[in-house]
Every structure is written in structure tokens, then in C-alpha cells.
């Protein structure tokens, strides 16, 4: 409740209401839009929950339970976006036997809005990924893999713009370097391009040419690498670009207890978040947008829903 008060108060002063020049209708909720972003990463074919066998993650995860959770959130929020940050495939026999078909069909049923591509999504070969794509009702966003000389040519897109309550949200995807990580026989002629360079270019394009109010990167670069500090990661991406507002990550299977807030090249804040792996966790970020009033802070209140 306090948050609502805060926003109403700042909106009030921001609109110069104190002087009584603005009609009261301007105070109503339409000046503040709440965008609810839900995200998963590295689900790794975890269709069913982990089995009840005494192992560490027993009983956790499961698409069916995620579906009811997402459904509940969608019923209470107006503007929900659901993303996945790659490594949808590989990890349970569902992938070995059915090649990722069920994973993508289920994500379509859950109405995912977009995903990016992880290294393990090539585990059935680029042809396998191609063959499964028709099972997805959502786009695969990837800006730094050049598929021109592969079967995936024109099957993916670098970004997609979502418009919610008049707010333009630009979402693009970045993938990890495949060489040395994935056998070339699987990714074939896919050309990897520098994520920082591409990230900068695409985010500027989204901000200035596409007039996006908020720019989100779906990344499979990994959060950060303690032993390989030079290796490009979400932290590098945040600090070396100018127009990314939020990075939803994957690859490192990082369970975050709060988002990492970094400063970009322009001195502005970038939010990095990741939601563990295997669908054990669903990440949620509620972004409050205000018209005409620049927010003072990007404070992050962390709620744990057990």
C-alpha cells in the first residue's frame, strides 16, 4: 500500500497538482502502468517436477504447477509478459525421446511471449531445433547469431516490440559463444557476433528508431564468471552498453535473491535478474511506468513467495 501512496504522491507533485492547475482525473491509475515481467531460464526439459527420491530438488519445478502460478498472476495483473532465456532443451528423457516437441508445446500453452536460444537448444542439432520450432507459438529472439547460411535463416528475429497500455517494450535476445561449447557439427554455419557490439546497436535502435520506453535483453550469456573475468557476461553487457534497462539471464543457473543493479556507460541503472534453473523458480519483476515524471529511484523490494 505504501508504494501506491508513494507513486501517487510523486505523480501529484510531478503534475503540479499542488497548484490546482491539473484536473483530478489525471491522478487516476492510468498515469501509472504496472508491467509484470515473468521469466524462466535453463528449464532443461524439466517437464515434470523432480522425482520424490530424496534428492536435493525433489518435488520442485514442473510445468503444470508453473502454469497455475502464471495463470493466477495473469488473472490479477493487466500487463503480463512471460519470457524464457534459453536452454529449454536437454536434461530429461523427454528431450532424448521427443526432441523438444513437448517442451515447446507446453510453453505455447503457457502463452510464453518470446524466448532466446541457449547453447543446449542446439543439442538436437540446428536441424532438430528447426524441426521443433513450429511447435512454438512465440518467437525465438536472437540478435547475435547470424543464421544466414543455415537452415534457421529467417526463422528467428533479433527483437520484438510489445505495446502494453501505450508503453513500448523492446525485447531482444543475445546468445553465448558456441565455439568450444557446442560441437560445430551441431551448430554448423551459425556465426556468433560480439554481444556487446550487437547489444549496443540493437538497444539504440530500439530506443531511438523504434521509440521504445523500456529495453529488455533476454540473455544466455551467463550472469558473471568468477574465474574467467574477461568472459562476456550479463554484468559486462550491462556495464558496457547504453540503452538496456533490464537483462533477464540464463546459462549460469544462478538463483538470485535480489536483482543485481549495475550502472551502464551513461551512468544509468541496469537491472540484471536470473531465475535459477529447471523451472524451480519463476522470476517476477513489476515495472512501474509513469507518464511525464522521471522516477527518482529504481528500488527493488524483494518478495519471497514460497
Amino acid at each position, binding site marked *: 500500500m505504501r508504494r501506491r501512496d508513494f507513486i501517487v504522491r510523486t505523480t501529484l507533485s510531478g503534475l503540479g497538482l499542488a497548484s490546482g492547475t491539473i484536473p483530478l482525473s489525471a491522478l487516476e491509475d492510468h498515469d501509472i502502468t504496472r508491467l509484470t515481467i515473468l521469466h524462466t531460464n535453463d528449464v532443461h526439459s524439466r517437464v515434470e517436477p523432480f522425482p520424490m527420491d530424496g534428492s536435493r530438488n525433489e518435488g520442485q519445478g514442473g510445468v503444470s504447477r508453473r502454469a497455475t502460478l502464471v495463470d493466477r498472476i495473469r488473472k490479477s495483473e493487466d500487463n503480463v509478459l512471460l519470457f524464457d532465456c534459453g536452454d529449454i532443451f536437454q536434461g530429461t528423457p523427454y528431450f532424448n525421446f521427443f526432441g523438444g516437441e513437448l517442451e515447446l508445446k507446453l510453453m505455447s500453452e503457457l502463452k510464453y511471449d518470446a524466448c532466446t536460444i541457449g547453447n543446449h537448444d542446439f543439442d538436437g542439432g540446428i536441424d532438430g531445433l528447426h524441426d521443433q520450432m513450429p511447435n512454438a507459438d512465440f518467437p525465438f529472439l536472437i540478435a547475435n547469431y547470424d543464421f544466414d547460411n543455415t537452415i534457421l535463416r529467417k526463422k528467428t528475429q533479433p527483437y520484438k516490440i510489445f505495446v502494453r497500455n501505450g508503453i513500448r517494450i523492446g525485447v531482444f535476445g543475445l546468445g553465448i559463444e558456441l565455439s568450444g561449447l557446442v*560441437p560445430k557439427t551441431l551448430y554448423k554455419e551459425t556465426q556468433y557476433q560480439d554481444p556487446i557490439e550487437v547489444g549496443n546497436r540493437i538497444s539504440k535502435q530500439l530506443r531511438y528508431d523504434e521509440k521504445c520506453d523500456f529495453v529488455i535483453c533476454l540473455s544466455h550469456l551467463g550472469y558473471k564468471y568468477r574465474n574467467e573475468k574477461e568472459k562476456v557476461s550479463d554484468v559486462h553487457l550491462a556495464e558496457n552498453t547504453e540503452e538496456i534497462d533490464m537483462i533477464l539471464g540464463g546459462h549460469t543457473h544462478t538463483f538470485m535473491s535480489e536483482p543485481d543493479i549495475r550502472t551502464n556507460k551513461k551512468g544509468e541503472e541496469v537491472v540484471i535478474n536470473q531465475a535459477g534453473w529447471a523451472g*524451480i523458480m519463476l522470476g517476477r519483476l513489476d515495472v512501474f511506468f509513469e507518464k511525464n515524471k522521471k522516477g527518482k529511484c529504481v528500488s527493488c523490494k524483494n518478495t519471497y513467495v514460497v
Partner: protein
Amino acid sequence: MKKVVKYILSIGLFVGLVSCSKQIYTADIDTSYYRVNYKNTTDKDIDKMIAPYKSQLDAQMNDVIAINPEEMTKRRPSSVLGNWFSDALLEESSRIYGVDIDMAMQNYGGIRVPALAKGKVTVGNIYELMPFDNKLVILELDGKTTKMLLDRVAEKGGWPVSKTLSLDIQGDKATNIMIKGEPFDIDKTYTVALADYIANGGDNCFFLADSKRTDKDILIRDIIIDHLKSKPKGDREIIQDKTQRIKNIKY
């Protein structure tokens, strides 16, 4: 003509002003993390979609092929799960290839579960432990390349290795290397059983790509499943070895 230009200009200015006045800012961001577990109810439609796939899998995956007396975890630099896995690879590779293998290893990331639980071990468990369609190959490496590989193992913080190999990690190098009870000899040639993924240069082992290789096109997962199944039915308890084969040495 001029009037029209003026008109267009003023419209442009007007649109510009309007879009300016509708500037949108981010005021605040809240974060929550949901745990997806038994407290969430299931969705009947989703369950229906999963059911036909699940029944096909269950028929094959629920076969119990071993008994694990105690939970085995995967850890760096050395672990009981890694020991068991690479010893099974060593034993089976010697049998399959009919030659004496000096050592077997598995890249750390290749074992995809943090632990193998106590109790019944099913075919499904082995699929989750080794989901990749990696094949077991034998490499014949000269001393220099062997050292590069073992340094890579050290740099990565330790991989599962068979009982025929032990080493210390000093910084990011392998030292005090013992192979089959003998100190490592740079002038010798060694046979190593490992995943084709690594032999092809995976995990940045580019230096292995041109090594002499024997490949019988057998999946590591099938090798492990057959290893467990080949034991007589009454004698399928996993034997654990808790030896620290790789140690971190401070210097």
C-alpha cells in the same frame, strides 16, 4: 506551396510536442521470486498434454538397474559420484575396446545431476545424469598433450577421473600427477577414455582435435546403463570409493 510546407512543419512540431509531453519513465521496479513446488496446484489441461508422452517414457525409464547404498554427490575437485562414473567408464572402455586404458575421465559439466540419491537407481536416473548423446572414444596422447589435458582439468577445478589417475591442482596447473601408480612421464604415450565432445575440442580442449582416436560409436549413457545391468541381479549395489583423487594445493 510555402504555406503547405509551413503547415506540415507545424504539424510536425505539434506531434513532437505531444509525444514529448507523453514521455514515459520508469518509476520503480519490484522483484519477486516464486518457488514452483508442491504448494502450487497442477493444471489439468497441461497434465493431459503431458500424459501420453509420460506413459511412453515411464514404460522404459522406471526399470530399476542398481541400488545406491548412500547418496553420491558431484563436487570439485573430486567426488564420490565422479569417482564411480569414471571408474565405470574405465572398466567398460577396456572391455569394449579390448585394450588397456590408462585413464578415463568425464568433464564436470557432462554429469548433469548434483547428486545420485540413495536407493533405487532407474534407467531414467542415468538419462538425467548423462542426458547428452556423447560417445566414448579412446585417445592416444603423447606426454605433452596429456599434460595439456590434465592442466585443463586443473584449470577447470577438477573433473571426475578414474582411480588410475591422481593429481594436485596448483594454481591452474596439474602437479604431482600419478598414472597407474607411476609418476607422469612426458616422454610416454597415454590412452585416455573420454567423451567425443571433449575429443572434438569441447570445453576449450581444442588441442585434442587432431589426436589419434578410436571410436566405436557407443553412447556413454548406454555404457553406464549396460555397466549396471550387466551385474547379476542380486548383486547390483553400487560400490563407492570416497578417495580424493584430485586435491587443491595452496602454494
